[in-house]
C-alpha cells in the first residue's frame, strides 16, 4: 500500500476522537502544497504527501486552545517542533495525535523556480509536477522540463538526521533509519569570511527586510504572538524607526529567543518574501549549544533546556582568564 493510503487509513482510524487533523493538500498550482484541515472522512481525499509538503504543520498546533484534540502529520523535522512544544508545555500530550511517516525530504521551491527558469521555463502556473526516482519533471505552459532531484532538495534535507519522526502516535511506512552528517559547515564557511564582509553581508541583507514578520509568524516556536517584544513599547526593544540596525535587532531577538529551542525547520527563511538567510543566525546558536552543552532541541520532551539551567562547574565554558 502506498504511504499516502496508509496515512489516510491511520487518520481515518483516529479521526473520531479528534477535532481536526492537519495535513497537506493540493495548492493553487501543481508545484505547491498547502495545509489542509481535516475534520471528516470526506476531507481525506484532499490529503497529499511528497517533496512539496514543505510547510511545518506543527506551527498550527498552538493556534488552537490547548483543550482541543488535534492530529498533525509531521515530517521528521516537524516532529522536533512538536517535541519542543511539548517540552515547553505549550501543547498537551494527551490532546495531540502525531502522524509520522518516513520523509525522503522536501524541495526548496526557490531552487526549483530558479532551476526551471534557467531552462527557459516559467515556474509560475505549473500544471503538472511529478517526482519519479531521482528526477523532477514539471509541465508549465505546455512545456515540460526535467531536473535531477539532487539539485532541488532543501538544504536542511541534505543534512537531515531525522527523516523519521522522533515522536509519533501513528507511524506509517518503513522507517528510513538514515542519518546525514551535519557539522555546521555552512556556519563555519560564513565565519571564515573576513569580519567586515560578514557585517556588510547582514547590512545588505537586512536592508531588504520589509519588517513583515512572516519569519516570526511561520515559526512554530514563536508563541508570543501578539505579545512579541518587537512590537511593543513596554519594553521598547525595537523602535519604529526604519533603520537596518532596528530590523537586524529583531532578527537577533528572534535568534536569541530561539537559542536552545530552534529545531531548524527553516520555516522562517522559507517564509521570508525577500529571501534573507536568517536561519544561519539560529544555526549558529545551535552549533554553539551543541558544542557547549551537547544538546539538540526537540529531541527529548523531558530535557531541561540548557539556557534555563546551569551547572556549578561548567565543563566546556572556558572563561578565558578575564
Amino acid at each position: 500500500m502506498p504511504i499516502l493510503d496508509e496515512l489516510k487509513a491511520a487518520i481515518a482510524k483516529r479521526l473520531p476522537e479528534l477535532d481536526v487533523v492537519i495535513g497537506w493538500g493540493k495548492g493553487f498550482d501543481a508545484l505547491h502544497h498547502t495545509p489542509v484541515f481535516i475534520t471528516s472522512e470526506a476531507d481525506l481525499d484532499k490529503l497529499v504527501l511528497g517533496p512539496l509538503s514543505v510547510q511545518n504543520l506543527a506551527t498550527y498546533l498552538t493556534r488552537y486552545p490547548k483543550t482541543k484534540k488535534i492530529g498533525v502529520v509531521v515530517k521528521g523535522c516537524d516532529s522536533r517542533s512538536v517535541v519542543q512544544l511539548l517540552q515547553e508545555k505549550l501543547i498537551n500530550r494527551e490532546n495531540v495525535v502525531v502522524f509520522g511517516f518516513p520523509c525522503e525530504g522536501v524541495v526548496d521551491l526557490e531552487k526549483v523556480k530558479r532551476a526551471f527558469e534557467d531552462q527557459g521555463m516559467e515556474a509560475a502556473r505549473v500544471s503538472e509536477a511529478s517526482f519519479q526516482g531521482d528526477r523532477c519533471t514539471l509541465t508549465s505552459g505546455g512545456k515540460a522540463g526535467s531536473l535531477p532531484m539532487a539539485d532541488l532538495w532543501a538544504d536542511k534535507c541534505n543534512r537531515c538526521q531525522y527523516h523519521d519522526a522522533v515522536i509519533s502516535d501513528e507511524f506509517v511506512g518503513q522507517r528510513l533509519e538514515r542519518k546525514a552528517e551535519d557539522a555546521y559547515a555552512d556556519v563555519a564557511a560564513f565565519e571564515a569570511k573576513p569580519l567586515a564582509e560578514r557585517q556588510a553581508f547582514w547590512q545588505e541583507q537586512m536592508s531588504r527586510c520589509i519588517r513583515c514578520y512572516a519569519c516570526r509568524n511561520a515559526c512554530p516556536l514563536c508563541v508570543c504572538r501578539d505579545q512579541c517584544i518587537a512590537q511593543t513599547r513596554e519594553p521598547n526593544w525595537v523602535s519604529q524607526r526604519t533603520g537596518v540596525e532596528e530590523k537586524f535587532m529583531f532578527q537577533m531577538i528572534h535568534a536569541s529567543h530561539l537559542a536552545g529551542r530552534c529545531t531548524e525547520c527553516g520555516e522562517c527563511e522559507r517564509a521570508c518574501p525577500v529571501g534573507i538567510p536568517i536561519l544561519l543566525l539560529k544555526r549558529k546558536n545551535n552549533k554553539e549549544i551543541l558544542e557547549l552543552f551537547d544538546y539538540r532541541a526537540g529531541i527529548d520532551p523531558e530535557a531541561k533546556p540548557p539556557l534555563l539551567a546551569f551547572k556549578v562547574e561548567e565543563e566546556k565554558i572556558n572563561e578565558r582568564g578575564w
Partner: protein
Amino acid sequence: MKIGVFICHCGSNIAGTVDVAKVAEMAKSLPEVAFASDTMYACSEPGQEGIINAIKEKGLDGAVVASCTPRMHGPTFMRTVARAGLNPYMFEMANIREHVSWIGKDKEANTAKALDLVRMAVAKLARNKPLFAKSFAINKRVLVLGGGVAGIQAALDCADGGLEVVLVEKTTTIGGKMAKLDKTFPTVDCSCCILGPKMVDVAQHPNITLYASAEVDEINGYVGNFQVKVRKKPTYVDWKLCTGCGACLEKCPSKKSPDLFNEFVGTTTAINIPFPQAIPKKASIDAGSCIKFKTGKCGVCAKVCPVKAINYEMEPEIVTEEVGAVIAATGYDLMDWTVYEQYGGGRYKDVITSLQYERLLSASGPTGGHIKRPSDGKEPKTVVFIQCVGSRDKSVGRPYCSGFCCMYTAKQAILTKDHIPDSESYVFYMDIRAPGKMYDEFTRRAMEEYGAKYVRGRVSMVYPSGGRYVVRGVDTLAGTQVEVEADLVVLAVGAEGAAGAAHLAEKLRISYDSYGFYMESHPKLKPVETNTAGVYVAGCVQGPKDIPTSVAQGSAAAAKVLALFSKDQLQSDPQVSSVDLKRCVGCMKCAMTCPFGAIKEQEVRGEIKAQVIETMCQGCGLCTATCPQGAIQLQHFTDNQILAEINTLLESELEETQG
C-alpha cells in the same frame, strides 16, 4: 517630568579632577531637567537641605545626585528625597567619585565621563516610578555561627537583650582559639579563667540553644525570615544522657587519637572531652581512631558508661531552625605553614607553631604546663621565635599582616622566661606592630625585663644539627648574617579565614576575599554588616584581630541585631518583579529560573499567568532577563530603564561622531 540634578564637589575629592560646575551647567540642557546645581557636600546637612529646598521650590518630580557610590549614600539621599515629599524611588545617583574622580586625573575626560553618567541617571530617572515598600513580619531569633569568643559575646549579648539565640559550633566544644591560649596579652591573665565563665553563661542561658559538633548545611530565605538547616554530626554519645564524668576517657584503650584541641601536640583517647572547662562538657568519639569503629571489637566505653550514653549507631541529624538574622563568627585558622620547606616544612619535630606552643605552656595542655620539646621531651634552653611566617609574604600569597603575632610572641617570650628562668629567647622580627593600650610597653617589657633578644630580620633557613637546630637569619641592624643554635623553634604563623569559610560564605551569599575573610559592608562605617541584609560578621571571620577587638565586634553585631529586631515588622524592598498580565503568555520560564521560588502560576480568566510573591522576590531580575515577551519586569531596573541608559550613551557617541 521635572528633574533636579545636584553635582557634589565632595570637597576636592570630586571637584579636584572633575569640572563640577561645568557638569551642572551642561546638565541643565538635558531634556526633563528643570534644575541643576553643584554643591560642596551633598550629603552634609546644608547639602541635603539644598536638595529639599530645590525640590519644593521648583516643584521637582525627581532628583539625580552625582556624588559617591550609591552603595554608600544611596539610602541617605533616598531619605532626603522622601523628606522633600517625593517617593524615595524617584531618585537616581551618578557615581562620579569612585568611578570617575578617584580613578583618573585627566580633568577633561573625567568631566565628560561625569556628564555621561549624569545623563544616564537622568534618562533612567525619567522612567522611574514611585514604589512602595510592603511590611512583613520577622522572626526575632538569631543564629550565631561559631562559638569562639566573638560568637560567645554576640550570643550572650543577644540573649541578654531578650532574643532567642541558636549558637552553632563546628567542634565539640565552644571556646574557639581563645580556649587554647594559656595567657592573654598584655595583662598576662589566664585565658581560660576569663573565658570560662562566659562559656558557662552560654550553657546556662535560657535563651541560648547550643548545637556543638554541628554545621550549617543550608540557609534559605531573607532578612527577618531565614530557614537554616543545621547538621548535627554524630558524636556517638547521647549528650542528653552524658554527664561528663570522664569514666570512658580513663578506660578507652585507643590512646593514639589525634588531639585536635591540643593542636596535635601529643595524642589523646578516641573518646574524649577536649579540656576540663569544655562546654558542653560531654564526651564524643573520634570514629577515625576508635577501635570499635575500625575493627568492630572493643566497646569498652559503652561498658563503663554509668548512664549508657554510648551509641555507636548514631547518624547525622538535620535540625531546621527559623531565624531572622545571622551572625557569622567562624574565626580563623593558621595558614598551612608547611609551604616553608626552608623551616623544615613540618619535618622537624621541634619546629612548632605558636598555637602549639600555647598548648605546651598551658597547665591543661599535654605537658601539664611544662615546656618540653616534642622530639625528646627535654626542656629547651634556647627558644627561637620566628615572626611573620605566612604574614607579609607575597611569595606564599599572604601579603597582609596578621596583626596579633607580634604581641603573642612577646607574651610567649615572657612566659618562656617564667617557665624556664635559665632559658634564652630570640625573636626574629621585621617590625614590631604593637599599637594598642599597653601593647608597646608590653613588648618593651619582654626585652627589658625578660631579656628576650630581638633580632631584626627574617630567618632564611632552619636545619637540624647535633640534636639542635641551626637557625640561620640576619640581623639587618647589625648588617650581618647570624646563626642561633636552638632547642625549640616557634613559628608565629599568620592567620587566614577558617577552613570552610568560603563555602559558608557562599551559603550566606556574602563576599569573601582570597584568604577566606568575609567582606564587611563598609570598612569604616559598617564594620560588622555585610552586603546581605540580616547577615553580620564578628571577630576574625572578617580579618585577623586580637581578643578585645573580637569581643567588641561580637557586641557590635549583637547591637545591630537588637536594633534590627526592635521593630515588629520590616519593610520589604519594593524593587521586586512585577508581571504585566496582558503580555504574559504563561510559559513560566521565569519560574523555572527563579532562585527563590518566588514565582507561581495563577489562572486569570482561564489562562495561565505568572505571579510574583513579593515577599519572596529578592529583586535579582533573572526572570526579566528570561522572559521572551518582557512581560515580567524588575521594578526600578526595567528593560526600558536600562535601555534608556544604553541609548543615552549610544546617542552621545552618535552626536560626537556626527558633530
